[in-house]
């Protein structure tokens, strides 16, 4: 899986799809999505190919991490952060496994 498609896909999933939920913050959600895509797209690919890291555990870690990021960096609303953390990671991991597996 090429890095370009991985980062673009993760940016669309974690940035563009989260943007309507934080519409009032203008471009902030897209910035957070881009940073998450750069960080997770490349690191998950390396973890997947070079280690035997348990991806079910990584899925849970990613949900907790994203929830915390959306909560702290965007708006302090729990339900939005948890909903996006679970939903976007579910879509993100399906995208990741289809293209890498």
């Amino acid at each position, binding site marked *: 899986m090429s890095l370009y498609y991985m*980062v673009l896909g993760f940016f669309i999933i974690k940035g563009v799809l989260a943007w309507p939920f934080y519409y009032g913050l203008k471009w902030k959600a897209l910035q957070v999505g881009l940073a998450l895509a750069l960080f997770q797209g490349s690191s998950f690919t390396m973890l997947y190919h070079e280690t035997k890291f348990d991806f079910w555990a990584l899925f849970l870690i990613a949900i907790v991490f994203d929830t915390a990021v959306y909560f702290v960096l965007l708006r302090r609303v729990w339900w939005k952060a948890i909903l996006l953390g679970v939903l976007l990671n579910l879509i993100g991991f399906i995208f990741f496994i289809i293209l890498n597996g």
Partner: protein
Amino acid sequence: MKHFLLGFVFFFLLYNCYADGPGFSIRRVGAESIFTFKGVSNIKNFVLAYSHYEFYKKDTAKKEFYNQLLEIIAEDPSVIYTQERGRHWEESERDFYISLIDTLHGITLDSMKYVAKDYNIDFTISGVVDGKLQYKADSSKAVFQYVFFKGESTTSVYKKNRIIFIACSILGFLLLLGMFLRKKNNQTN
């Protein structure tokens, strides 16, 4: 003390995930091993053959289903790539044999076994003495061939691509950290 214990539990859990992780691992693509043979033309009257085992049927671990494949190494230098995709029960495909065959009598004189996993091996062949192949083998760690764009040739740039992957990961983390620190400073001011 509380923070230390929490940190210990967190790292212990991460280590446990790393050590025994079965999740999503069954079809993971690993680093491809590359074998380079130099000095093949130094062998006169003999032929060097490369063989590896492949499962005849995919759904069983029974050894009777192994099917041996033989390839003659003719060019100098020759480069052989092992399978890049491996399930847990197909790891034996990476067992790799080099055989020295006497072409006049059709017999195998010498054979060596290598486990072709995670390492690239460079063979430098100097000749044949008393039916034994004289060679030197240097191994180096195999690196996964990451691509930056789809369809990119990775034979020469895969180490550079790996650095790009690491750089992207660090950049994303630093961006998140920067945003967090900016937010924290704004709140304290």
